[in-house]
């Protein structure tokens, strides 16, 4: 597992490296890693490039098996992996290309508050958020959903939540897929998955999920920032969470099923976790229906947490959230599969684009963007690790080479046990407090596992995607207060 990658890596340019398809029999396309030379030295340490090579075996794969600079080892596709398959040519869909936490994603909420407004009440604010938003191992929400409501969430997503009073109508306009994917099929979600999700709606969960109060401390493109309602010194809130137990169960259920179907479709792949079926098959349609349902559950989750966060701010600042200017900037998924149209070899083709630990980054002019953002490109929200900064980017036309995909975050460097060993005897909360960051958390070892040194430097990751031209930096945010599960 910790064996280094010893295969050949050919430099294409300062930000692109190729694993030639001759590296391994069965590779249908090359692998391409977006990285610089310095980060590449870390990337090869956990053998994630081998997973890029494995993914290149997927039937119908188009152009290349790609990985973003925050790449690290995952199941099937590595985290940071992007793979597109040609649906008409027997292209496949694989749960290993989406991940267990379907639609793990992040949203950015702006406010009209400044650092000087929040600093004197920061402890109270973080404490109120911690008590208002359920978080931690096995966290459960305030409402157990009955079967009928559970199904409505899976088709309605964030729109369901807004209809229920957990948000504002304009929230869904600034959300990928407008907060819910069409084609979700709750009947393809097992009763087990329904049960696991039934009391987890509106919860943060654990691991690297968080809720963060931030201050914008750097603007790189003021013209774009203005359109997004972002300015220097402004307080923002970032929500990072996914589909909780429901998404994990959907992935488990289908990963198991797909292994059985490999023989039916005569598919050979080097890793069981890449088990797949043609998109144009009953089994493929079933997984897509279930995946979309789980994705919608996650959007409903982030919408409910937005609502709870607004409530927390209202309590502390004694003003309603609208007068505090707490509008949603955007919400992105970074574990998902989408059906999108691209020009491949001069022909328009429908592709199944898997983004696993990778974010969609549509360019300016794209029809799917909200009207207000069509001139600037799709906002891309990149959460940093706990204690280090996060970024707001936009998509670019050049990103067509990655099927309009970019990085998703910092990417881990150290295993959880290595992080715990490294930080033995240290009080991470005190170290963060010394930097002016207040953190509240659940879980005995959460802070140690999530310490900044366990992650790549997100600034380096973002600089690479900017250098490669597939995204552009708009603003940087630094943390002031963090709630972690």
């Amino acid at each position: 597992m910790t064996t280094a990658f010893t295969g050949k890596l050919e430099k294409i340019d300062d930000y692109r490296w190729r694993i030639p398809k001759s590296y391994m029999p069965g590779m249908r396309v090359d692998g391409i890693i977006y990285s610089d030379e310095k980060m590449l030295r870390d990337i090869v340490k956990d053998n994630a490039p081998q997973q890029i090579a494995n993914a290149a075996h997927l039937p119908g794969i188009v152009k290349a098996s790609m990985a973003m600079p925050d790449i690290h080892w995952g199941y099937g596709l590595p985290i940071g992996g992007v793979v597109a398959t040609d649906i008409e040519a027997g292209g496949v869909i694989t749960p290993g290309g989406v991940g267990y936490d379907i639609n793990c994603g992040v949203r950015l909420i702006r406010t009209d508050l400044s650092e000087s407004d929040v600093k004197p009440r920061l402890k109270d604010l973080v404490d109120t958020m911690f008590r208002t938003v359920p978080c931690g191992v096995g966290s459960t929400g305030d409402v157990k959903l009955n079967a009928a409501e559970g199904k409505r969430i899976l088709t309605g997503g964030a729109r369901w939540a807004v209809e229920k009073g957990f948000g504002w109508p304009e929230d869904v306009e600034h959300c990928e897929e407008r907060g819910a994917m069409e084609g979700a099929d709750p009947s393809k979600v097992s009763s087990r998955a329904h049960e696991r999700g039934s009391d987890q709606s509106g919860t943060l969960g654990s691991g690297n999920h968080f809720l963060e109060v931030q201050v914008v401390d750097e603007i790189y493109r003021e013209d774009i920032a203005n359109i997004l309602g972002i300015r220097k010194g402004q307080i923002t809130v970032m929500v990072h969470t996914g589909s909780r137990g429901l998404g994990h169960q959907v992935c488990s259920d289908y990963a198991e099923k797909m292994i059985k179907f490999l023989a039916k479709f005569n598919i050979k792949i080097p890793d069981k976790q890449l088990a797949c079926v043609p998109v144009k098959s009953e089994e493929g349609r079933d997984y897509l229906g279930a995946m979309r349902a789980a994705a919608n559950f996650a959007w409903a989750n982030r919408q409910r947490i937005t609502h709870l966060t607004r409530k927390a701010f209202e309590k502390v600042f004694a003003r309603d959230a609208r007068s505090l200017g707490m509008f949603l900037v955007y919400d992105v998924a970074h574990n998902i599969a989408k059906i999108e149209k691209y020009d491949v070899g001069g022909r328009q083709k429908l592709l199944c684009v898997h983004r696993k630990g990778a974010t969609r980054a549509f360019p300016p002019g794209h029809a799917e963007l909200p009207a207000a953002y069509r001139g600037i490109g799709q906002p891309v929200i990149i959460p940093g690790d706990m204690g280090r900064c996060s970024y707001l980017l936009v998509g670019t036309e050049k990103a067509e080479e990655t099927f309009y995909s970019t990085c998703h975050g910092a990417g881990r460097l150290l295993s959880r046990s290595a992080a715990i060993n490294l930080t033995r005897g240290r009080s991470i909360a005190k170290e963060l407090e010394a930097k002016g960051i207040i953190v509240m958390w659940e879980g005995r070892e959460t802070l140690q596992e999530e310490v900044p040194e366990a992650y790549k430097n997100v600034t380096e990751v973002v600089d690479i995607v900017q250098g490669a031209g597939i995204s552009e930096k708009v603003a940087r945010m630094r943390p002031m207060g963090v709630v972690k599960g």
Partner: protein
Amino acid sequence: MERYEEIPHTADLAARIFGKNTPELFENAAFAMFDMMANIKDKASSVKRQAPSGKRQMVNVKAADTEGLLIAWLNELLYLSYEKKVFFRDFKIISLKDNELTGEASTLAFPEREERKAEIKAATYHDVRIEKRGGGYEVTVVFDV
């Protein structure tokens, strides 16, 4: 013989599990998973000291091959743990043949928050290979957290 050892994994949890024979390997894999979630081997832990409640939990799963059975056994235990809000210990494989497994475990109350170490959400198929090693069997399982 040690039942398992935790091995480094960048993003999640992984364990190398040992057993004299395949049933013991499966029992130790379940032990490893629950021990990594909340200490069940430490004498001082409430999970170790707790008396089991009620009947033993029965588990029956089918899969395409032995590795599939292992992952199905672990994921079934995980699902039951979350659904019933209980914890398991004292695992026993009753029968393991023809790609079907029957096993059982003692049921305990879910551990207190302070006792919980990690939230394992699934046992994955990543690189799962049961291998003969040193007079027994060995397998590495990666768990999604």
